[in-house]
């Protein structure tokens, strides 16, 4: 009397664990989970890190040639007060060139990204209210860089022009004109006037994964969808092989059979993700963030992947068809979810469309985790669980028929 109720609930759970254990052993033996769950994502993350680790495009300092033939105060102020600080902040690397021709030829061959040439007499012309011009030479292949340099130069000349234009505006609208002495005073006052617009710099935190972590996390979550499919597709394999009939004939509740397959998927998915987190951190220096947060995100993403892959399996007639359809869906969701490149940074609708992929939520969760405390990941986790519950519920509903051989 006392034994019966205690034994009954344990038996189905044990059956499920036994099935999972058998499946896991089979997966370890045929090496497919090892290859696609761990080796391929790790290999790709390694390759992408090795190749793109040094490619940072926009983030490199601009090597800028500076050829100043003018020794007056205006050009000296430009170099000391504008260019030097930008070199100290890491935006520019300045190369002093002896002549405009030297700067030009080095820019033409790409040694310099751009050059600024200030002709002799520049300061004199500026101070004497004469037309004056400095030149930005750009490398034809680096137009964006050149525009930045152009903006730096324009920012400085705009300041000079503000004083010039201030004096001119007042002089032109003063009845009877102004004496040179009065113009001198005006210029001094204009130079001292408060600037109308100032820029206040606010440093935003980074919720974007750095390159190393992005490739590691992107590849890991991309292949997660393939890894978990080994478990759920097992249900179809049992049916194809005729072993399902035997399982059903055995005194095991059908729920245990299903639970066994789901446990297999979860263990395969969570284990390979854990190995990838540790391996990419140690080997490539990927930073995944707060371990508790990462663990929660992995658990939620694995569940979401199982839900989606199971749902797809319920539409397939056999294991091969299931794995074909699963790989199609996994690849599309992986692409949209930004595992290859950050689709969330796309303009327009695509940045919203990415959120239909659980991968996007997983990566967003990791990104948010970089900047904030654990509390920031509840939205991504909730989203991943919504995927799990919705797809899982439909899959379970459809699986009523699957277990009937």
């Amino acid at each position, binding site marked *: 009397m006392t034994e019966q109720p205690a034994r009954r609930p344990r038996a189905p759970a044990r059956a499920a664990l036994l099935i999972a254990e058998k499946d896991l052993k089979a997966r370890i033996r045929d090496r497919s989970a090892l290859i696609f769950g761990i080796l391929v994502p790790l290999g790709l993350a390694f*390759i992408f890190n090795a190749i793109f680790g040094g490619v940072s495009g926009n983030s490199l300092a601009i090597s800028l040639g500076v050829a100043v033939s003018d020794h007056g105060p205006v050009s000296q102020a430009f170099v000391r007060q504008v260019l030097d600080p930008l070199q100290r902040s890491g935006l520019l690397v300045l190369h002093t060139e002896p002549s405009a021709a030297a700067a030009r030829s080095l820019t033409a061959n790409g040694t310099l990204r751009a050059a600024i040439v200030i002709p002799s007499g520049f300061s004199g012309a500026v101070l004497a209210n004469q037309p004056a011009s400095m030149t930005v*030479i750009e490398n034809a292949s680096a137009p*964006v860089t050149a525009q930045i340099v152009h903006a730096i130069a324009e920012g400085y000349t705009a300041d000079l022009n503000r004083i010039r234009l201030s004096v001119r505006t007042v002089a032109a609208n003063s009845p009877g004109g102004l004496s040179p002495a009065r113009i001198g005073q005006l210029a001094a006052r204009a130079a001292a006037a408060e600037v109308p617009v100032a820029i206040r710099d606010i440093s935003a935190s980074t919720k974007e994964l750095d390159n190393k972590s992005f490739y590691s996390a992107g590849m890991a979550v991309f292949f997660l969808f393939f890894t978990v499919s080994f478990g759920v597709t097992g249900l179809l394999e049992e049916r194809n092989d005729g072993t399902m009939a035997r399982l059903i004939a055995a005194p095991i509740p059908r729920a245990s059979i299903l639970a066994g397959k789901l446990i297999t998927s979860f263990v395969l998915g969570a284990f390979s993700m854990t190995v990838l987190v540790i391996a990419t951190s140690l080997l490539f220096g990927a930073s995944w963030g707060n371990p508790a947060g990462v663990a929660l995100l992995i658990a939620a993403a694995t569940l979401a992947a199982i839900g989606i892959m199971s749902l797809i399996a319920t539409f397939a007639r056999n294991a091969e068809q299931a794995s074909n359809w699963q790989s199609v869906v996994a690849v599309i969701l992986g692409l949209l979810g930004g595992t290859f490149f950050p689709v969330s940074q796309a303009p327009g609708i695509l940045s919203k469309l990415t959120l239909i992929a659980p991968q996007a939520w997983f990566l967003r969760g990791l990104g948010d985790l970089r900047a904030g405390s654990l509390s920031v990941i509840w939205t991504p986790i909730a989203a991943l669980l919504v995927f799990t519950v919705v797809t899982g519920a439909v899959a379970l509903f459809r699986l009523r028929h699957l277990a009937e051989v």
Partner: protein
Amino acid sequence: MTKAIVIALNDLRRTFRRRVNIFFVFVFPMLLILVLGATFGNSSSPRLGVVVARSQPLANALLRQLQRTPELQVAVVGSDSALLTGVERGNYDAGLEIPASYDAAIAGGRTAAVSYLARPGVAAQRVGEAVRGAVARQATLLGAARFAVAERTAPDLPAGLAQARRATTAVPLVSVTQRVAGTATFSQTPGQFDQGAWTELLLFMFLTALTAAIALIEARRLGVPRRVLATPTSVSCLVAGTTLGRLLVGMVQALVIIFGSALLFGVTWGQPLGVAAVVILFGLVATGFGIAVGTLFRTEQQAQGVSLLLGLGLAALGGCMVPLEVFSPTLRTIAHITPHAWANDAFAKLIGDGASIGAIAPQLGVLAAYAVALLALATWRLRRVLVAAA
């Protein structure tokens, strides 16, 4: 020879009878071209999110000034918090908040403070300089107008602005002249989907050829070569047929991607003769490589794993994921051990520069050398494997 063609056509039919292959050979590459073009194709200029807290004349003038700045792509954002999240997540390279008090501060002779939001790093600093330049240009006119008010030649700011605008035409300004040196990588600006299309074409042609490895192992497992060789068919004929079959798959794929991307996304492919030469030679290289690799493995899982690593890895190194122009010079040299890099260079000339086949002779030469070497290796290995299987 007819037998070889029959074997090849049979291979082609077998490949495309599996619907999943149609997805990975045709549909997925097109999808990637679409998403790549939509994400990166528009412009490489940094994106600046701007919040105009209250729509007022001077605030709007600053917004227009920013929009006119060629080095920036400006997106108007609804709220400060949306801007902050967008900048943190990397949706914008930086953000600018023009406060509600902007117009009032300028009219009142005070300094209007706009907030520039950026993540730490050099990329955001570049955007910062572009924003500073645009703000300084606005400040030129505003400063002069305010000075006129302060010096009592104008009764109020609008009048001051009018005076300053009139004065602009009369005053000799200090200017910045722009000159271009050297030759551009692309003399014509490639279309939004162009670069994505040719790089993905190369990536997927190679990847598809590598799946030959899997097909070969499957055929051996099913005993197809043994049965074929039991008929009066020579090994050479089977080798030729198998090789030709894989090449045909690649050519059909290339045709569909080239014409599909031209029709759907308006990709311009450059001189047809040149494109055909690159595609055929690259297809031969890929076929040789795929078959040579296919003879090295026993199980389909092994072959699948290695195909993915090689297919994506070589494509990444060869400039199919990140353009070769942004590689460091050393890495660019290393990249040219891949046939992808040579084919990419050829397409860059054909599509980016509008060059004709003569201009890409060096690239074609290298690809031809690769093709000869790899096909020789592939047929030698294939012959051995097929004989062993029989």
